[in-house]
């Protein structure tokens, strides 16, 4: 059993294709791992029958020679993706019991490519959070522990915390995540796995519960760069049902993978060296620079002068969009309704939303409502959209002197549950390195770069030009091949 859950996506695909493993056995092994992994609280719903059905289809397809790109690969699906007939809650009480009659484009594409679903993955409520502690279904635990001998429960990061924990703990070979301001990259960094947020518009947003429409992007999380490339190929692609979807062919990223970076210039943005960040973060960053140099890349220093404004810009735009996107949760057409004995429609709205939303979601809705309200639109929202244009321009100018950027993914290693919940801004700072690329819609990836003094993983972020996922993946592969990162969470659950 242990052996089978050591198989990643490429290994399962190839093994099923050459008959060295059966898809059924792989699915059963992962289903058992999901059950055994319940103490991590990574899954909100388990769907073993879905995974087994896909596995049986895969085994039959091998027999008839009709294998698809992901035949026999069982996946976890973040609970933000609508899955037909399967509870979809976005980590929120307000959607408890909601069973969509439709399948999100991305999960539908994965299933059409032969993948099965092990279950739905826990997450921060409506993807708002960086520690998975805002989920209505309880926090997700990271499989990682500090090596100080204490048993402090650590966060896997967020909002794709269930996704990260499941991959890291070998409960799934790969998963979907979504990234609005770092929600794929930061949890990947915290749990020692890889994850890529593609260019905005690569993956359809249709059927993904919206948080902030101009920032939300789906992407894969997996154990290595190749597996990310394989999954991304299946997830991406034009969707006429999403007006912001890019009408472009999906490249063969996996086939083109190359860790030879000769001829590539990698920019090191000066402004990402910020005060108060642990010295270990800088050390791993320097290590990453050395690895890319070793792979043939030329290293140049670049400037992204508006970097320090990215986070406050994000915390105006994302809550503003969210305050509007979440208005549909009103207890009328689906989800929870709370009807006070006294009172009519307005009281029903107010009670439903007061009880249905958690504290962080309410806080962001309130901030978003405030910055859009009469008299404040120009000072907050419009100003933020202008600064956002400047942040995007910074990147454009950087591309004049480099092809890629290398930065740390997060300003710290995973922290303990409860450590940052009292201070929203301290929590928001987790995404200080991730948010600029989100604002500019750029492809960005986190790969493991090393461990800190406590043995916890630290991530490196690679940011690319619009649509240049290939170079991002290539640089990720170059780091992966050279870093010798082999650390794994010891199983305690």
């Amino acid at each position: 059993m242990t052996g089978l859950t050591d198989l990643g996506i490429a290994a399962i695909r190839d093994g099923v294709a050459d008959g060295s493993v059966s898809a059924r056995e792989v699915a059963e092994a992962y289903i058992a791992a999901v059950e055994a992994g319940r103490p991590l609280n990574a899954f909100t719903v388990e769907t073993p029958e879905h995974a087994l059905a896909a596995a049986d289809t895969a085994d039959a397809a091998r027999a008839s020679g009709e294998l698809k790109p992901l035949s026999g690969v069982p996946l976890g699906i973040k609970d933000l993706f609508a899955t037909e007939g399967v509870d979809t809650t976005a980590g929120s009480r307000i959607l408890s019991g909601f069973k969509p009659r439709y399948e999100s484009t991305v999960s539908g594409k994965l299933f059409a490519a032969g993948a099965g679903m092990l279950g739905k993955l826990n997450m921060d409520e409506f993807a708002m959070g960086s520690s998975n502690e805002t989920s209505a279904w309880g926090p997700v635990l990271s499989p990682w522990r500090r090596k100080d001998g204490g048993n402090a429960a650590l966060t896997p990061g967020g909002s794709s915390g269930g996704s990260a924990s499941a991959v890291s703990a070998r409960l799934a070979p790969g998963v979907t995540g979504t990234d609005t301001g770092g929600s794929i990259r930061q949890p990947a960094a915290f749990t020692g796995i890889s994850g890529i947020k593609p260019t905005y518009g690569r993956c359809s947003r249709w059927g993904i519960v919206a948080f902030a429409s101009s920032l939300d992007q789906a992407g894969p999380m997996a154990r290595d760069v190749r597996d990310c490339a394989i999954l991304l190929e299946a997830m991406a692609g034009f969707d006429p049902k999403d007006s912001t979807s890019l009408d472009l062919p999906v490249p063969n990223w996996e086939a083109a993978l190359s860790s030879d970076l000769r001829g590539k210039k990698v920019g090191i943005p000066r402004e990402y060296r910020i005060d108060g960040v642990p010295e270990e973060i800088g050390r791993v960053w320097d290590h990453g620079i050395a690895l890319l140099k070793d792979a043939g890349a030329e290293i140049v220093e670049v400037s992204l002068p508006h970097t320090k404004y990215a986070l406050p810009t994000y915390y105006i735009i994302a809550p503003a969009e969210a305050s509007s996107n979440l208005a549909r949760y009103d207890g009328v057409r689906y989800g929870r309704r709370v009807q006070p004995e006294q009172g009519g429609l307005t009281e029903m709205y107010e009670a439903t939303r007061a009880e249905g939303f958690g504290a962080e979601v309410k806080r962001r809705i309130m901030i978003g409502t405030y910055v859009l309200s009469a008299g404040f639109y120009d000072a907050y929202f419009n100003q933020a959209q202008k600064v956002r244009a400047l942040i995007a321009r910074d990147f454009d100018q950087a591309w004049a002197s480099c092809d890629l950027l290398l930065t740390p993914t997060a300003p710290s290693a995973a922290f303990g549950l409860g450590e940052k919940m009292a201070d929203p801004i301290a929590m928001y700072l987790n995404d200080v390195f991730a948010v600029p690329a989100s604002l500019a819609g750029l492809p960005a990836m986190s790969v493991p770069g090393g461990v800190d003094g406590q043995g916890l993983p630290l991530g490196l972020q690679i940011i690319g030009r619009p649509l240049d996922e290939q170079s991002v993946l290539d640089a990720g592969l170059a780091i992966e091949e050279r870093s010798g990162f082999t650390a794994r969470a010891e199983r305690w659950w």
Partner: protein
Amino acid sequence: MTDSTYRIHGATGEWEVVIGLEVHAQISTRAKLFSGASTEFGAEPNSQVSLVDAAMPGMLPVPNRECIRQAVRTGMALEARINPWSRFDRKNYFYADLPQGYQISQLYHPIVGEGEIEILLDDKDEGSAKTVGIERIHIEQDAGKLMHDQHPSFSYVDLNRSGVALMEIVSKPDMRSPEEAGAYVRKLRSILRYVGSCDGNMEQGSMRADVNVSVRKPGGELGTRTETKNVNSVRFIMAAIEYEANRQVDVLEGGGKIVQETRLFDPDKIETRSLRSKEEAHDYRYFPDPDLLPVELSDDFLIECRSSLPELPDAKRRRYENSLGLSPYNATVLTAEVETARWFEALLAGLGVTSAPAEPGAGAWTPASAEDQDKAKRAANWLLSDLFGALNRLGRSIEDSPVSPAQAAELLGLVADGTLSGTLGKQVFEIMLETGGDPAKIVEERGLKQTSDTGAIEKVIAEVLAANPDKVAEYRSGKDKLFGFFVGQTMRAMAGKGNPQVINDLLKKALA
């Protein structure tokens, strides 16, 4: 251009009324603005609702090209500035008929900017023309429908209308009387129906107006206005203005102040009421819809929009006057409704009348030939009196007239060439209305042909004179009035088929 003399006579003197209208017109399309669900009227509740219209989690809007195209064509028909770059914004508020919790609309960058409409206050008088400015046209979604009388403790929600495309056509505050507002709405409706961008069906809610009214001393500073929402007929719009203007004058003369507020029109009591229940400060928190990119109109798109515009009512009316020589009144009535104009032109085509629209920008018409002008005038008179009279009687609209334009052309031809007298023409028309038959065939079958055979007529006249020797003597001794008697007797003896002109001529000779 005339200045309105409409005034409210208050205790402190005369008051002028200032009116602006926001007309919501449903864009004629098969599918909704942002989803593929049907817009058909009158379907089972919630049967024309997509997951997008119900605002299911993760659903996204994709705009319908035809909605954009019709809004642009409408803007062009109103001589308005078309904005090649526009954008959709969200208007945020909570209500049970609004599934998304926001309406997708256009606040900051509407698709159409300033334009104008010419209205005629008197159909017979070009001098009564007045121009009303258009402020803007934007595209937005309609809301669903609430039903309050189906259940003791619930309101029911039907989302069939949710997401249907509307154009909001905002006028400048250029109107000064209920009549001007009525003429404006009728003219706007006419143009929209010519363009084909809205069916103008006010009973089904395809057109409704928010009525902005304020009063002031003539020529003085603008007063505070109120907005009366969703008034759905021309009559009610005029009534709402009249009521609201008088109410405001009463308030002001009583020492009170007008509150800028939203009001409701009660069609039973013919009054407006404050919507106090919703009066809590509205703050719509408009911002650009992040699910949609800006709307950018290509040159090709704009060219197609313009070249597909039909001849519009004003141009048509001027052509009828200047090229066909119709009276201003006839030209106005024939062009007011697109169906009438279409029918009339089919009739002209049947009569072989040619009259080309003026070249764009040329502003001049080549007069049709005298013969064609004559035919056109006869056709216009016949349509406006005979056909309209019959349709009125039958309670039918011109679209389902029992007589087709081709049949009518044939009938008018038979009268013009003397086959039928005017009286016989009317008889044949009645038979056509009843049977739907072709006139020539009716004439043939029923032997209704007029006779101009002088020999035959002379023979009948001789018989009539012989039978009435005393009347002949009276006539010859100077009682001229008896001439009509002889005509009537002759016509009756010929069963109405004698050519009246010939009968006249021959009688005069015989009685001389």
